[in-house]
């Protein structure tokens, strides 16, 4: 995990939401590593903190009740304190750009496609040759030029998602973050968008953080996988290792259910037991209540992250491995 050649490293990221006067952790001691041109995936069930993680990177957490409690980020050798919201906000656009889940609501309904793409280009490179860049981007996301004069409501869901991708790429970010970019689309369109992201990643050597609850989606695009559960990063490793020899009981269960009952839409059938709630600091393993192999200490002691094998590149947060 401590790959020295990472372009992006995030360590010890914790985010709290204030709910009914109590501060509860949605993300806790989470981390990520990303090499130049690499794709990494963050997987986990609904509520595991994936979007919160991404929004902390973008400084886009709701100002009213969310707070980054801790977190250090290093990108291209410069480090940032993730608690410093305005410092992080300056990285929007040129460093991180983001593609969202619901392409209709995330596009401004009153602006043409062209002006929304142009805005992204200009804000991050005032001297850019706008016409040329717009044409380039449209080719990249495989959209016809005539879409430029259209408004979001005039396009199909798949086209809108291509526009969102063009907007994000228009920023020329070092890292593209995609939060469930296909969940809101129908199955055929999902496959198209995934293929598109894969092509773009190869064509321009894009570094990608892909967030999904679907390990299948993640493993088709990403070389490395970070599994989240209850706000913690509970396992990380190369895609092949995670798929062939998952170390954490949660990951094992994920892969098992995925193989056994894969739904029509390719989503996982959920595990039995409650979806993890927001956690208060200092309890045991978040997965313990649903874990088939839990030991007494699992309820009381939080396991630390331990190397599993693969020369230290595969680690898990589980007492079986510590």
């Amino acid at each position: 995990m401590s790959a020295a050649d990472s372009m992006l490293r995030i360590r010890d990221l914790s985010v709290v939401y204030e709910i009914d006067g109590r501060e509860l952790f949605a993300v806790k001691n989470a981390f990520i590593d990303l090499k130049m041109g690499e794709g990494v995936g963050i997987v986990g069930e609904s509520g595991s903190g994936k979007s919160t993680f991404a929004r902390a990177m973008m400084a886009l957490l709701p100002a009213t009740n969310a707070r980054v409690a801790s977190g250090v980020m290093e990108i291209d050798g410069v480090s940032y304190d993730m608690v410093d919201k305005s410092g992080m906000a300056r990285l929007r656009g040129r460093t991180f750009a983001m593609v969202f889940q619901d392409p209709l609501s995330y596009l401004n309904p009153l602006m043409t496609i062209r002006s929304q793409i142009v805005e992204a280009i200009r804000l991050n490179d005032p001297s850019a040759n706008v016409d040329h860049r717009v044409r380039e981007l449209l080719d990249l996301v495989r959209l016809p030029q005539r879409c430029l004069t259209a408004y979001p409501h005039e396009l199909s869901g798949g086209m809108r998602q291509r526009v969102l991708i063009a907007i994000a790429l228009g920023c020329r970010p070092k890292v593209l973050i995609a939060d469930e970019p296909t969940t809101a689309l129908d199955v055929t369109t999902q496959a198209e968008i995934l293929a598109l992201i894969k092509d773009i990643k190869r064509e321009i050597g894009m570094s990608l953080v892909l967030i999904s609850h679907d390990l299948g989606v993640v493993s088709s695009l990403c070389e490395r996988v970070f599994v989240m559960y209850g706000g913690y990063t509970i396992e990380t490793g190369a895609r092949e290792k995670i798929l062939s020899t998952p170390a954490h009981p949660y990951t094992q269960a994920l892969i098992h259910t995925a193989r056994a009952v894969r739904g029509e839409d390719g989503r996982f059938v959920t595990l039995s037991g409650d979806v993890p709630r927001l956690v208060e600091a200092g309890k045991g393993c978040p997965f313990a209540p649903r874990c088939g192999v839990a030991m007494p200490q699992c309820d009381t002691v939080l396991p630390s992250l331990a190397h599993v094998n693969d020369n230290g590149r595969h680690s898990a947060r589980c007492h079986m491995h510590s």
Partner: protein
Amino acid sequence: MLRLFWNRLVWAIPVLLVIVVLNFVLVRLAPGDPITSIIGEYPTPEGYAEQLRAQMGLDRPIHEQLLIYLGHVFQGDLGYSFANRQPVLSLILGKALNTLALMVPGLIFASLLGILIGRVSLSTSARFLDSTLTGLSLFGYSVPIFWLGQVLIILFAVELQWLPAQGMFALQTDLPPFLDYLAHWAMPGFAVTIFYAAIVARVARASLKEAVTGDYIVTALAKGTSQRRLFWRHVLPNGLVPIVSVIGYNFGLALTGAILVESVFAWPGLGALFMASIIARDYPTLQGIFLLAGAAVVVSNFVTDVVYEIIDPRMRNGSRGA
């Protein structure tokens, strides 16, 4: 767009026709008689009242009077005001211009002020300013204009003697006409401005607060948009429709909206003429004022609809595919 324009124009004609007929009837249903108001208490020769009645056409059956009136209206002749010894059309147009000279600048300032108050209410760091402005706009909305008017007059006209108490122009002055108008406008204009600013601000606060929660705002932030640009380019346009609606509504009622202000400050506008015409039972003038006021509402509705379509492409009729 052009077709829509024609549709509305065609609709405006029956609407105005109904207004004309209703006014004609309503004015005559009210108690009182124009002849008695003209003659007053003075002794008159035998048959003078009847002669006057015939001269004004008031001796004919009411439906005949209506038809004659309609015929004249279609030729642009709104009749003759005996009380003012002037044709109605030029009389009310002149007064309407005076009223607009009071109301239009007031409404424009009020709109800008209302939107600015709405903008301040979005800022999390300007809580104090926000509550101050909210308090002020509540005051502006609820303070009775005749009271505020008297206070202003006592303070600025009587005590300080900075501003003229009444009218639109001074009879004799060294000031150039525009400055003279400004000096006369200051107090009634202020009263109009704060009243309407309160109305616009109430709507603007709500609709801007709603617009700022839109997902497209997140996309705009993710591009690296500055707060200033975010407001003018994304938040305001998306919150603008209700604001335009309330501004348009009040513009439409502007001709008759300042009756109280006009009487407090003796502004020579349509409101003052309206009051005088009621007392004089001046049917032709009253009908003319109603017709003009009705036409103003029709026109402002039309303009408001066109502005909606300029703001929001989804409201444009017959736009390309869904």
